[in-house]
């Protein structure tokens, strides 16, 4: 198993930083039953984070990394934005390439890993913001769905270009005032979850990250379905507390209030996806 690459060379053990030794000794490798409940007791795959204090996106990334069923053989591809600032902190093989091309890069990686390692499971997961997924990268996102690429795409929707200073995005709700939309956004929020269904995704979920256990279930189902059937898409509300004028401790309340309206939990599964999920449930992995 590839988690051997986390083994510390004995010659260097006395000078290797403790967090790297912890990765070998206390991270949950080789255990598909790992999950968010391990967070307090195991070594996380996120080494601190570089986002604002209280940023819900950092919570989302922690829950996602804790929920990966096969982290030792998972490749993560991201795009430019706040998420990319976290990538150097993730203890996996990750890629930041360009702004918007994440699903293309992930397609190339997934296909080649299937070709090079026909007998191994290698999961490929895309983590990107709403600008990367739905504006500049929409073509590449949808085309990877059309082509039935076996990858899981996770969109962190904060409804704004946060990293560049708060500009309107395609996922901003109509009427909200942001930079580049000084009179308020003129068109509706793009229903990306519906586009994902129409474009051939086999599992689609929309939710906030207010409930870690729910995030864990959704992530695992999406990855298992992507592994065996085809593309899957998860749309997460991770508000930018900075851009909407909230305090560091307001993120959770903001998500809970949206749980009841435009981010009410929504899930879609094709019959093939249902079959895969039932199989993993029977194996006790879901």
């Amino acid at each position, binding site marked *: 198993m590839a988690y051997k690459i986390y083994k510390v060379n004995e010659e260097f053990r006395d000078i290797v930083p403790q967090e790297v030794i912890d990765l070998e000794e206390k991270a949950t490798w080789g255990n598909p039953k790992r999950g968010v409940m391990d967070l307090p007791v195991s070594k996380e795959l996120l080494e601190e984070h570089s986002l604002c204090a209280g940023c819900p996106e950092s919570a989302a990334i922690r829950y996602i990394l804790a929920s990966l069923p096969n982290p030792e053989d998972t490749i993560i591809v991201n795009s430019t934005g706040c998420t990319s600032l976290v990538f150097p902190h993730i203890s996996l*093989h990750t890629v930041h*390439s360009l702004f918007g091309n994440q699903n293309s890069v992930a397609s*190339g990686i997934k*296909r080649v890993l299937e*070709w*090079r390692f026909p007998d191994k499971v290698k999961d490929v997961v895309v983590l990107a913001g709403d600008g990367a997924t739905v504006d500049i990268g929409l073509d590449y996102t949808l085309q990877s769905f059309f082509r039935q690429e076996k990858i899981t795409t996770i969109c962190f929707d904060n409804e704004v270009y946060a990293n560049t200073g708060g500009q309107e995005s395609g996922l901003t709700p109509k009427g909200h005032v942001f930079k580049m939309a000084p009179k308020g956004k003129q068109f509706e929020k793009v229903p990306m979850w519906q586009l994902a269904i129409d474009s051939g995704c086999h599992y689609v979920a929309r939710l906030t990250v207010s409930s870690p256990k729910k995030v864990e279930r959704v992530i695992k189902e999406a990855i298992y379905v992507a592994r065996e059937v085809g593309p899957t898409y998860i749309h997460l509300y991770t508000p930018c507390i900075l851009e909407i004028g909230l305090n560091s401790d307001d993120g959770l309340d903001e998500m809970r209030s949206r749980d009841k309206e435009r981010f009410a939990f929504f899930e879609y599964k094709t019959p093939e996806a249902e079959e895969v999920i039932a199989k993993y449930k029977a194996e006790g992995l879901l």
Partner: protein
Amino acid sequence: MRMIENKVEKNWAGQRIVSPDYLLFEAPREKHFMTGSEAVKEAVKRASVDASVSYPITPQSEAAHLIGELWAEGYVGVYFRGENEFGVMSEVAGAAMAGARVITTTSGPGTLRAFENFPMWSGTRIPVQLVLMARGVNSPLSIQPDNLEVDFLLDTGCMIWYAENVQELFDMIIAGFAVAEQPDVHVPIITAVDGFFVSHTREAIYLPPDDIALPPYNPYKSPMPVIDAEIPPGRFLRDPFVMKSNYISYATHASWQWEVRAAIERSRPYAKHYLRGLTEEFGDKDSDIVFVACGTAASQAKEAVRMLEETEGIKAKVVKLKTIRPFPYEELVEATKNAKYIFIPEFNVVGWLEREVRKALYKKSNAEIIGTPRVAGGMTMPKEIIVKEVLEYIK
């Protein structure tokens, strides 16, 4: 895991594995008659290519179809049609990061649509091969031969080679992998030819047998860890993120960019070996009239050299540049040391090769450097035009 050891005797297609030297220089060759697009297929067939992604654009489409046929026949591991050239060049980047030997093809406007990817390729140190069948760029719309797009590519950190004809294209594609994949080089290689003049022209070509092939690419020799979760370090971001506002990050970015250029410089000895020199001369070695050219402009210049000798009794020579990046500075200085007149015939409006030659010869040559004849947009360059220009200058 798919075979990646150099010691194995056969690749996945059942071809016997031979060294690049054997394939290029020693294997017996047979004469065939084919187009540049067909020569691409023959080269890829003998190159143990893991992956290719394609997109239609004239004049490279046929080459891309033929790579697809090789996939259907089991010679290429992964192949599909991407959504557009920006997507394609990102897909091949992902494929290369995951440890594949990759080739793709494009032309003209496709090159420009893909553009953001090329400096990313070199920065991420992937030895992707792009066969560029040069064509005009808009506007107005043109699908004709014109190599303006090569000018735009000069500073992307990719190696750029320029093949004159069908034979050279075949040999350069094979040599391209051998050079680009050297651990101390490991940058992308753009193998350029003139669209139509080479892609669509049927010529004699000598090919080694098709039951031998290059050793498969070994990604574990890469200077950057391959993205497959099989090699330490476990925590690895490709590419390194240096976007912090401090001098260490600025210096890291700068040194990374310089290192990409240094890697191209380190390709010189390998390219000299596999291309048998970065330049090639034709005509009277001591002549003071010199044409410096690449691609089919070199072919036309050779015809002009013959015509000058036959009709005017004037001796001249052609210095053909096979590599543009790295640029063959020393070879060019040596080859033009007796020159009084240096003519640079080109298939583009801006004269990018003239600029390159002027830069290379600045304070190193007293010759008059003349950027002519220059044609574009699909115009041809008859030898008579070249001869006429020369006679006007030297009388």
